[in-house]
């Protein structure tokens, strides 16, 4: 995710997170970069094609994984869940936002939006130990 976000900088990147759900814990085992389909300035906007998401979901199923979240980057901007993010979100997935400052990863946060797209709960994130 970080690699993809840094490569796509200064545009916003986006992609899907595949993995498994164990109770209240979601374990991401793989990140799949998807094309930013927003027709316009991509520095501060992204859009996922439903077809791409459908394909990612199919790919996950065939490998016994689940599509559990969506990630995207905020170039030169903090990793908050913006109004635009919220209004175009979906409560079925966790949304990880990566802050990329001057082309380098800075920090990330995860959010779980509600059904009516009016609020998003922050989720605790743990990175794998290398």
């Amino acid at each position, binding site marked *: 995710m970080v690699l993809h976000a840094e490569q796509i900088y200064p545009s916003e990147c986006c992609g899907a997170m595949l993995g498994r759900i164990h109770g209240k814990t979601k374990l991401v085992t793989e990140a799949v970069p998807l094309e930013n389909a927003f027709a316009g300035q991509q520095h501060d906007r992204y859009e996922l094609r439903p077809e791409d998401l459908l394909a990612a979901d199919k790919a996950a199923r065939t490998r016994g994984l689940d599509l559990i979240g969506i990630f995207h980057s905020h170039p030169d901007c903090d990793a908050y869940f913006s*109004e635009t993010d919220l209004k*175009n979100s979906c409560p079925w997935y966790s*949304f990880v936002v990566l802050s990329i400052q001057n082309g380098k990863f800075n920090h990330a946060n995860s959010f779980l939006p509600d059904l009516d797209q009016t609020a998003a709960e922050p989720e605790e994130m743990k990175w794998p130990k290398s």
Partner: protein
Amino acid sequence: MAKILIPTALRQFTEQSDSVEVTGATVSDALDALTAQYPNIKKNLFNDQGKLRSFVNVYVNDEDIRYLDKTDTKLTGTETISIVPSIAGGATAVEEQAPALTNDEIARFSRHLILPEVGMEGQTKLKNAKVAMIGAGGLGAPLGLYLAAAGVGRIGLVDFDVVDVSNLQRQVIHGTRDIGRKKLDSAADRMHDINPNVRIDKFDTGLTSENALEILRDYDVVVDGTDNFPTRYLVNDACVILKKPNVYGSIFRFEGQATVFAYEDGPCYRCLYPEPPPPGLVPSCAEGGVLGILPGIIGVIQATEAVKIILGIGETLKGRLLLYDALGMKFRELKLRRDKDCPVCGDHPTVTKLIDYQQFCGITPMSSEPMAASGVIDAVELKQKIDRGDKFVLLDVREPHEYQIARIPGSILIPLGDLPKRLNELDKDADIVAQCKSGGRSQKAVDLLKQNGFQHVRNMTGGITAWSDKVDPTVPKY
């Protein structure tokens, strides 16, 4: 039995099944069967009004039902139905997603709000809508007034012209005090006076192949109030490329047309007119005249269509060309279809980027200039020629009713249309200066005379308008 694939997050409601078999004749039936079996899933897919939530897309096999028959899409029972959310976002909060209406706005738009078809939801859509208006002239005048009054939040105005006294007979957004001002400034002042909350983006330029996509990209709906063919084809092609509805209107003398192009799966301007008419065949309003009220009617029809598209209500003029005849006071309608061979919006488009529309419409100013330059005379030179007492014929090729308004002393009148059959009234060896209102028709007269063996023919540049400007201000301009 059709199979519905359940996204991971919803499997908590389906006892962890990743797919559910259902029966149903349509997608709607299948989803009803799913929610009947697992009631808790319902609020994830449908809002309180029972409509699919905005982020829910449904695919039958690999087809998005929005491009089939929506939830009425028929099922045979062998399909796989997928539920896919639409997801987007970005670092900046989008300003057009403005908060709900203020109390002032609720008071202002109360007559809209009590229409159930508009209501708070519709008025908020209008507030968040962005409309591009090409031209702030005859059609632009009622459009600007009514779109601002209706509460459209953001309006982009594209115009490079200045208010002239001859505009005021129809361009009611401008006033006598605005003569000489930029139409952009004059129109924006009036629109702000009607609705101080409207945001107006001023583009002080003509729309060109270079700037059109950049200017129009930010808007939801484009309203075409232009008066010439190159710009009309440009607006059309840009709207098809950008997938923006193009609300079209045109006016001439006592007749007008309106429709909606490039909207959903409907036709575009090129499906109706693949090729422009030869230059000069269709006169402009400046040449042919126009009833001042006519653009009022056509512009208001365009404003209505723009508002309906924003609200998503009613039946638009998509696929119907509305014809209006002011003298007969009749409306008629022609059916239009998308041409699958259309070069722009057809199944295999050949025009995929903007082209040179002047050239496309046969207007080549560069090539005609050298010829014109050798045979022209301007207003001041004409005055000197008259004062010297030169023996020559001043041939006025305008229409008789124009000749009644104003004329240059000593001119003889042969309207351009009559000229071919009245050539014998002129001496082939005479020194002839052809003159009209502004120099266009007289150039055609010069070309015609030269083709017929007249040796000494010149065109008066600027016509009687230039005569009034530079020689004799007592001659009225029209």
